């Protein structure tokens, strides 16, 4: 008998989701009543299997900057590319069957607009499997438009100098409004040019996923941690003299423990759930020493069913779409497996 065995009707889990915060480029959510294997599958697909677009081929016509072609090509590849679906205006692929369309996460899915170059019947690349960007900056030309006091400085070529040939596809200059307001440059720096230098190139952006190269990964962060289950022996804590309660709070770094009510200071609560599991033993040892019955006043353990996710998008794909595309990718895998198992079963019969 396996310790995991569950009655047949309880085999399938009924998970729940709670969004804790949803901002411009980052979000945090909790998945409950599931398993670490499902949480880890979600984390892995978001990082490695969400389809995005990135520059994959660069043709140099002129590069007199002090940076080598391959370094510039690599930097261009890492610039996040955004596909912005405009309802009614974006021309969508017509070769997508109804089943395929239903299997995509939404109309915003980049695969409604582009297909993989390897699936395309074109020769090399075309409008349906790639997007072209042009970059042409000549120091002596651009310096004319620069304010007088900056004229002897090198010019920084950034992502805003990239010109897309598709109105729905463009490079991401900043991941958020906040980054835009604090940045000293107008976009993502590619190369610096000095007097007399010039750079002229064209780039082909194609679909791909993180499994091929990390430049197609849509997120800069995608992590999960088990939700801690916390319990305090409130009566025992309350019975302690105030200075001993202060010692308990101070056993962890600032901000991990705190008082429920700053003025009253009788009951201690966990202020930072993400860090608490690292200090559980310290708190238990200390409260055990302080307890007249030699009993710890605190218990915390990692949940095996509830997990807290934190995801941060690079700006190419909206952060909630990163998760939806990830879920969709697992769905696609499992649907394929359902078909495959049925085939194996038919063979065995």
């Amino acid at each position, binding site marked *: 008998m396996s310790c995991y065995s569950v009655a047949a009707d309880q085999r399938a889990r009924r998970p729940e989701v709670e969004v804790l915060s949803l901002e411009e480029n980052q979000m945090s959510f909790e998945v409950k009543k599931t398993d670490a294997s499902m949480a880890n599958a979600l984390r892995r697909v978001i990082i490695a299997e969400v389809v995005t677009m990135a520059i994959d081929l660069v043709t140099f016509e002129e590069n007199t900057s002090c940076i080598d072609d391959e370094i510039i090509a690599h930097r261009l590849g890492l610039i996040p590319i955004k596909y912005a679906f405009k309802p009614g205006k974006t021309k969508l692929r017509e070769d997508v069957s109804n089943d395929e369309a239903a299997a995509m996460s939404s109309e915003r899915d980049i695969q409604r607009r582009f297909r993989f170059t390897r699936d395309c019947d074109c020769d090399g690349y075309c409008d349906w499997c790639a997007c072209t960007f042009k970059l042409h900056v000549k120091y002596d030309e651009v310096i004319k438009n620069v304010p007088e006091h900056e004229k002897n400085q090198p010019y920084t070529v950034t992502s805003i100098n990239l010109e897309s040939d598709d109105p729905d596809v463009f490079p991401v200059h900043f991941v958020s409004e906040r980054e835009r307001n604090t940045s000293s440059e107008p976009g993502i720096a590619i190369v610096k040019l000095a007097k007399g230098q010039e750079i002229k190139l064209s780039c082909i952006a194609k679909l791909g996923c993180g*499994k091929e190269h990390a430049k197609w990964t849509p997120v800069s962060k995608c992590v999960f941690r088990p939700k801690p289950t916390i319990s305090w022996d409130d009566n025992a804590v309350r019975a302690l003299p105030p200075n001993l309660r202060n010692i308990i709070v101070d056993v962890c770094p600032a901000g991990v423990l705190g008082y429920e009510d700053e003025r009253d200071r009788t009951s201690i609560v966990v202020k930072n759930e993400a860090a608490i599991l690292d200090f559980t033993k310290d708190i238990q040892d200390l409260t055990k020493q302080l307890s007249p019955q030699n009993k710890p006043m605190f218990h915390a353990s990692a949940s095996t069913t509830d997990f807290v996710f934190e995801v941060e998008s690079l700006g190419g794909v909206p952060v909630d779409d990163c998760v939806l595309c990830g*879920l969709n990718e697992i769905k696609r895998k499992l649907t394929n497996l359902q078909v495959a198992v049925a085939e194996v079963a038919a063979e065995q019969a």
Partner: protein
Amino acid sequence: MNAPERHRSYQLDEGQARMTYEPDQRVASAGTFTINKEDHTVGNLLRMQLLRDGDTRFAGYQLPHPLEHVCHVKVETAPGRAPVEVMGGAVTDLRQEVELLDRGFRDECARAREEADARPMET
């Protein structure tokens, strides 16, 4: 340039089957599923789900080599229920679970957005 194409790690080769099954030669109602172009994501997911079934006696997965894009899942079941049957149940259960996760996530995002819109603008 003889590097294999990058998509070979996740797209099936021409005519390749997603899954094959090899019954165990010595143990009855046991066998190994070979899943092509899948990795730990699916391997561990299936293993944990298979172990939730009361008829599973053993379930384990293995990636034989980092350059071979193949995942082996070995299952032994109680007599009376074939490994293929248990595997089918596990895949269906997982498929259902992801559907619920997807729906829950969409609803929650909509709720979070509504709440953000209702809040007065920060200045």
